[in-house]
């Protein structure tokens, strides 16, 4: 346990998060309340699931631009399966995740075996998925989903919805996978020297493909939970904006675009940092035009401060 905390503190993003929360408590009215904390936690749960997958992909030196569109596809599919076809809940959930896994398999195969760079592959598949989602849904939104499905993510447990606990569980699993397993060691080796990864006994090809499978499966799960949270299934759920938010969270958390470096705690902090900033901007009712600029400015400031801090250390 203490090792986990030590790991977390070594990571600049945890320090940044604590700093931002303190600033929020002092300067932003209505920030410091249990209710508001619960709101932030609820808003962070689903992106946390998605950022886990992206972290893994980034660690291999790749990128997954189709993530936001997998969310949209999963959302569309969920709406159809749950409401239009009336499939039972467990089948719906399994099928949604499976769709994600399939997309990841295609991504991974194209990247690994056709040698098309991940940027282009996932950009391409992203477009394709968006098109498919639109075709399937004919642009429509499906709302009022069956209560049995909603219960998966919304059942209240100690004041928080089940989706939060699902997220926690997945993040914990992810932590073990990335930081304590052979697969995780292979991921780290990727960025620096794939020969070392190869020598560790795992097929680099399989590790690479598996990474994308995991990323898209997690994205699909996130899409399912997001659909439940909003009670609306639509093809443009997620999208490019969501993808960028996730990548930013991972990088703020210390994951490098060049691979080899990645931390689950860091990425989790990255998500929380972004959601805390967004929360404060809304609470202070900052001009809507400045929204993105203020958020960006704060992120840059904290990163610069962190760089200065690690120089001085």
């Amino acid at each position: 346990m203490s090792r986990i905390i030590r790991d977390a503190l070594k990571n600049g993003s945890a320090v940044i998060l604590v700093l931002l929360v303190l600033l929020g408590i002092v300067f932003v009215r209505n920030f410091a309340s249990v209710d508001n904390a619960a709101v932030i936690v609820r808003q962070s749960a689903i992106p946390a699931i998605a950022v886990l997958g992206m972290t893994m992909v980034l660690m291999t030196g790749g990128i997954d631009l189709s993530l936001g569109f997998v969310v949209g596809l999963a959302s569309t599919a969920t709406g159809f399966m749950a409401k239009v076809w009336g499939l039972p809940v467990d089948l719906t959930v399994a099928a949604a995740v499976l769709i994600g896994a399939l997309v990841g398999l295609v991504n991974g195969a194209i990247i690994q075996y056709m040698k098309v760079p991940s940027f282009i592959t996932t950009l391409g598949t992203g477009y394709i998925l968006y098109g498919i989602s639109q075709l399937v849904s004919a642009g429509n939104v499906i709302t009022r989903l069956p209560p049995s499905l909603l219960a998966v993510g919304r059942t209240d447990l100690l004041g928080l919805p089940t989706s939060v606990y699902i997220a926690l569980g997945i993040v914990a699993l992810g932590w073990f996978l990335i930081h304590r397993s052979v697969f995780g060691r292979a991921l780290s080796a990727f960025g620096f020297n794939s020969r070392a990864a190869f020598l560790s006994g795992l097929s680099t090809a399989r590790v690479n493909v598996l990474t994308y499978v995991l990323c898209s499966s997690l994205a699909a799960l996130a899409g399912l939970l997001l659909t439940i949270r909003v009670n609306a299934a639509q093809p443009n759920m997620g999208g490019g904006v969501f993808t960028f938010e996730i990548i930013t969270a991972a990088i703020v958390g210390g994951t490098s675009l060049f691979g080899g470096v990645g931390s689950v705690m860091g990425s989790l902090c990255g998500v929380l940092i972004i959601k805390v900033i967004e929360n404060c901007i809304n609470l202070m009712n900052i001009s809507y035009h400045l929204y993105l600029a203020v958020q960006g400015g704060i992120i840059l400031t904290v990163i610069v401060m962190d760089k200065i801090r690690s120089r001085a250390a």
Partner: protein
Amino acid sequence: MGQRVGRILFSLLGVAALAAAGLLVPHFLTAANLLNVVRQSSITGIGAVGMTIVIVILGIDLSIAGLIALCPMVSGLLMLQGVPIVISIVAGIIAGIGMGLFNGLMVAKLDVPPFITTLVVGQVSQGLALIMNNGRSIGGFPASYVDIGNGSFLGIPVSDLLLLAMMGIGIFITQFTPTGNRIYALGGNETVVRQEGINVDGLKLFVYAFSGFCASVAGLLLSAQLDTVHPIQGDPYLLDTIAACVIGGVSLAGGEGRVAMAVAGALIIGSVRNVLDLLGVHPFFQNVLVGTIIILVVFGSGLSRYRRTVPV
């Protein structure tokens, strides 16, 4: 040698595709349409000139979307106030270079990941563009400015000439100056370059400033074409520009890539969209096809090769 074969094949593929499109797609192979395609691709193309060099030194510039909105907004507001066109344009370009220098500073001196700094600068620029006119677009510029976007010189649209000029500048810098050599060296191995005593920080500043310059020119051209500055007009161009570079064989692992090929990549993207429009393909299908075609073009040309063994 492998790169050369790749580039030749790429060009052959391009010619074959053009011929096929000409035969199969009504109205494609007309002078008017082809000139349109080049004009429509010129924004992405100019952005790609700067982006290529940034990617070569292992960076990325996500700020171009915001700059394509901010720089013409600055110029446009000045022009509408009666400030002479040339001065207004220079002001807009200075804004772009300034933001680029800021990016370079963050990356070179503070080691901030280029992804973060350029993303933020882009968002701040976008925010400024929104605030400067309260979220509204501006239009109705002096005729001589609008002519840059819509006029012709000796039968060739000025937009196309501007694209050629920017591409020429890019090629000159990368192929014919010592700076160019150093840029490619930097993308290959930074430590070695530093050891040789080369001013790496200065190089990075230059590269990001140049990208900012390209973005400002692209934005000014776009607004001339539209006779409008719409505060979020830059959005579609970010991914298209990077995709153009990658399609053109610029390696995301750094050290490789030619400006001319990136511009070709921009033309490919523009042509694909044009063909799909001319065929009347349903919008939902267009997405599916654009995605498929992008992947196939890169696969088919095999241009993107990485020197690292990482299968990215």
